């Protein structure tokens, strides 16, 4: 980790309400005002706890992006049977005409966008 990032982490004391709301939005969660306050404390604590990793010297460690030690795992371009439409839709909370159905998702839906 470079010095700039280290500095950034050290500076974390408490996340702002805005930051908590932003993280909640990315996680697709809606939080009440009380929850925002609650998680502001909890998330900050977690971050401060994880900061302990900063103490490790990683100068000589190679970046790892995979734990299995495997590489180059591929498959040939061959078709295998799919599951049926009925099976695919079996656990859908809502459906219509063979489609999964969700509530309208576009803010602006006066046209096919």
């Amino acid at each position, binding site marked *: 980790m470079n010095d700039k990032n280290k500095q950034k982490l050290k500076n974390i004391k408490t996340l702002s309400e805005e930051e908590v709301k932003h993280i909640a939005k*990315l996680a*697709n969660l809606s939080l009440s005002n009380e929850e925002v306050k609650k998680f502001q404390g909890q998330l900050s604590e977690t971050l401060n706890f994880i900061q302990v990793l900063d103490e490790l010297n990683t100068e000589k460690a190679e970046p790892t*992006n*995979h*734990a*299995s030690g*495997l*590489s*180059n*795992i*591929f*498959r*040939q*371009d*061959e*078709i*295998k*049977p*799919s*599951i*049926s*439409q009925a099976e*695919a*839709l079996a656990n859908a909370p809502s459906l*219509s*005409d*063979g*489609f*999964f*159905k*969700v*509530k*309208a*998702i*576009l*803010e*602006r*839906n006066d*046209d*096919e*966008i």
Partner: protein
Amino acid sequence: MKLKRILIGLEIHIELKTKSKMFCGCSAVHFEKIPNSQTCPVCLGLPGALPVPNFKAIESVILIGQALNCEILKESKFDRKNYFYPDLPKGYQISQYDQPFCLNGWLEYKIQGTNYRAKIRRVHLEEDTGKLVHTQVKGKSCSLIDFNRSGCPLVEIVTEPEFDSSLAAKTFLEKLQKIVRYLEVADADMEKGQMRCEPTVNLEIEDGGKNYFTPLVEIKNINSFRFVQKAIDFEVERQFKDFEEKRIEKMPGNKTTRGWSEKKLETGLQRTKEEASDYRYFPEPDIPPIFWSDKQITNFKELFKKIVLPDKLESRFISLYGLRPEQAEILCRDKETAFYFEKCVELGKIKKITSLDIVNKLINQSKKAKQFADLSPKEFIEKIGESQKLFSLNKEEISLIADRVLKENQKIQDEYRKGKTQVLGFLIGLVQKEAKGKADPRIVQKILAEKLA
């Protein structure tokens, strides 16, 4: 206030035409199939499913990368791009972040005889999302999802923001489409959504000796080359007016997405764009990294070398067969016509039919709904041979007959010279009769008109 410069960057998605999907064995041919009939736990994002990359798709991306003069990275991997949208069943898309298969290339394209070079930033592989249909069921608005397309291999090509006109962007895209078709890795039909293009547009505006940049706008939902141009032109005008009114400059975090509406011929605000860090990219733990050996890289290069690309074919047609650049361009628009032409030239040699005879016939025919498609090259050559045999008389021979006919019909000649030009048809008929139909009527008309002038 003056528009100083238009800046356009292109992000292009192209569906690869593999048989199976990117990470599972479901069929990747999804157009107009029964909804949700081609899925499995992998492409539905069910827990515990294991994605395994399709080698053919990777090979196809690396072919595209080479055609775009990119370097092939020796180490590559897949990453998860996290965001929530109903067409993305896992809550993340398997994509590539910092180690795409190909980086840093360029592609030349031509506008009115001048060559331009577009810089390519990257070419990477990812999986497609499901397809959303926005509709109403029982009077209530809703969105329907079909996951047949989910997990199909999708190539993303990102250019530098260096196009300075909508025409440049469109011309580049047409060239790109032609290339992927020559590579036979994609059909890239825009109307079918097999090639999707998202231009990002902003402007540099000069005012009072200072330069300002307008906020970035990404345009979505464009499904034809014509609309690429229209949408960009609309956006340029909109941004200029918007800046005049509000004077908002480009800043981190104020990039927006606008959707092109074909009906209204305008772009409308869709959403504010997430920053890259909001996607929380991280290496895909289910797919081990990829390291290419030197031998494998050589194999990719050998494979690429075997493929003829349109530029090369066009210059071959010009130098080898003496075609004009425009003719070569028309013939090379698609690989089938180009190869058909070459086959015809080969066969024509024996019958002394020149490449120019063939190109003329072929271009005329291709205007008329490609009639030649029904004929084999051999039949096509025979047809040309017959029509040439039909008009076996050369200009000198026709000229002699014409002289004879004119001499015998002095009166008609006089009528013509007095302005009764319709008698020309009669004279052509007489020459044809003498020639027993072996004269090309166009040449007869030309010769007669010259002699009568």
